[in-house]
């Protein structure tokens, strides 16, 4: 158990070093604003992918309405800072809690559904959330919520991303997390092992939704605007793609997927006409070659890195 603590500290230390390097590069203007923006976007996408991974990858509940929860966080957070002049940290908590509560209320009835039926129901709920926002003039309706101050920066996003990753990792590596995974593996067996499957499905859904809300608040406070067009089902598909591409049920996979897709998208920005064509072709090819995702359900861990750098060429499979 001490080893676990030591590993966490090591990871945390590495994160701080990474932060210091990137922050240094940012301050020295070696990384320009465009790449800063994309690094921030990577962080937000990691939070989204990791939280969807908790629902889809670990608990095995096929949800494709994540953009809806992101929207709730984006708007609730913006209302709190713009209309009520609350501090950013309160808005972040508010966005996460609001999305979490909604996730709970939605999850309770819908998680009785399974498979494709759950998928279309969550997709529908995501759209209902978006259409509802579209019809609330108080938050700008179809024009979007404008004039949101840029309160989020690389530092906020980085540490909240790390927080999210540790939160979900620790959850997964506990008895509660194992309960979630057992639902994915075999719901009936999980139930006969004394696990309240409904409770854990709703729990995973609620936690996933609240992190999506957190990401949404960061998003709207980085881009100055919350707009319904940013939260369509295509956004949900994007997040799902990151998760599946990285490997369902792999934490490092979700991170890899988010990093890769965000950077591919940014790199293709100079070829607007071809961007989506290249993007879709790469998606298809990657899926054909690695249907289980880049990492499958494996994790990149320190021990694997050690083994690779240690010159031991034994492959893990």
């Amino acid at each position, binding site marked *: 158990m001490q080893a676990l603590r030591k590993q966490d500290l090591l990871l945390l230390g590495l994160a701080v070093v990474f932060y210091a390097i990137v922050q240094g590069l940012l301050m020295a203007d070696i990384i320009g604003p465009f790449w800063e923006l994309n690094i921030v976007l990577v962080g937000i996408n990691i939070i989204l992918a990791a939280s969807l991974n908790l629902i889809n990858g670990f608990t095995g509940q096929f949800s494709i309405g994540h953009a809806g929860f992101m929207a709730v966080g984006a708007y609730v957070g913006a209302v709190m800072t713009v209309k009520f002049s609350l501090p950013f940290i309160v808005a972040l908590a508010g966005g996460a809690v609001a999305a979490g509560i909604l996730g709970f209320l939605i999850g309770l009835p819908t998680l009785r559904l399974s498979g494709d039926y759950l998928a*279309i129901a969550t997709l529908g709920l995501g759209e209902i959330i978006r259409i509802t926002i579209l019809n609330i003039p108080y938050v700008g309706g179809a024009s979007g919520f404008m004039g949101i101050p840029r309160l989020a920066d690389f530092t906020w996003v980085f540490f909240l991303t790390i927080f999210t990753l540790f939160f979900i990792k620790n959850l997964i590596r506990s008895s509660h997390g194992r309960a979630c995974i057992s639902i994915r593996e075999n719901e009936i067996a999980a139930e006969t092992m004394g696990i309240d499957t409904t409770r854990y499905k709703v729990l995973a859904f609620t936690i996933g939704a609240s992190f999506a809300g957190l990401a949404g608040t960061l998003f709207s406070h980085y881009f100055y605007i919350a707009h319904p067009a940013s939260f369509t089902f295509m956004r949900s598909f994007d997040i799902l793609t990151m998760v599946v591409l990285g490997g369902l049920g792999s934490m490092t996979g979700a991170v890899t997927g988010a990093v890769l897709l965000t950077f591919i998208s940014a790199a293709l920005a100079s070829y607007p006409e071809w961007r*989506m064509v290249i993007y*879709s072709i790469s998606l298809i090819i990657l899926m*054909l070659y690695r249907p289980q995702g880049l990492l499958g359900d494996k994790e990149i861990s320190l021990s694997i890195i050690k083994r690779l750098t240690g010159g031991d060429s034994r492959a893990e499979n």
Partner: protein
Amino acid sequence: MDASSFLHQLVQQLINGISLGSIYALVALGYTMVYGIIKLINFAHGDIYMLGAYAGFFATTILKLSFLPALVFAMVVAAVAGIIIERLAYRPLRNAPRIAVLITAIGVSLLLEYGMMLFVTPQPRTFPAVFSATVYNFGGLIVNSQQVLILVTAVFLMVTLTYIVQKTMVGKAMRAVSYDMDAARLMGIDVDKVISYTFALGSALAAAAGVLVGVYYNSIDPLMGIMPGLKAFVAAVLGGIGILPGAMLGGVLLGVVEAMVSGFFSSTFRDAAAFAILIIILLFRPSGLLGKNIREKV
């Protein structure tokens, strides 16, 4: 609003709804068929519908074909496209996790949309009026002959498909593959061929829908398949995905709900209402209206 005018409105909205719903049904039939056989949510189905509409458009404008040959041409083009897509993108993933196939389907969908945009530009095209629309006025109730045609076509295709699936050899093979792919293979059924056939049929149906809708609304563009695709999926699930009459029922129901919400409530909540109905029905009938609730054998 007095009673007679209310009634008049109600009937007209019912007509509007059924006409809209028959379009959803037309797209949903192919959707549900592909799902029935290989349990794939083929997100690219709406884009095949778009592809069919463009094939029909070019057949009438460049090849100068008349309506029926153009329709057949579009169906053939879409069928070939369907077979190619299945062969290249889905078949290699037959034993992969279903979600990987789903992501591939999303990829194919984006590729069709934006690949098409490269070729034909994003500008909408107007479909030439290959057959004229007659507007009938029954004491103030208005019906367009094209609406009738679409509804009749949808019903006809539903009946034909049901016949094919229930009575013909290839239909029996389809059902066998749907029920148990491995067992079907052991029984000597060429599973790959059956799946190709299903895709061809489903895609041809989508193309037929695309051409009819192109003529009806008179405007086509590379992103025209997204919403109908999504709505058709909703319709298929509503009726019980994998069940042909379910697609018809789901489509018409969805259309009527949308028309009623737009007509008597507010058009801004139309799509939200459509999804809400879907979710409510699923909560009470988790396998859709006509779906059989299959209990997992323990």
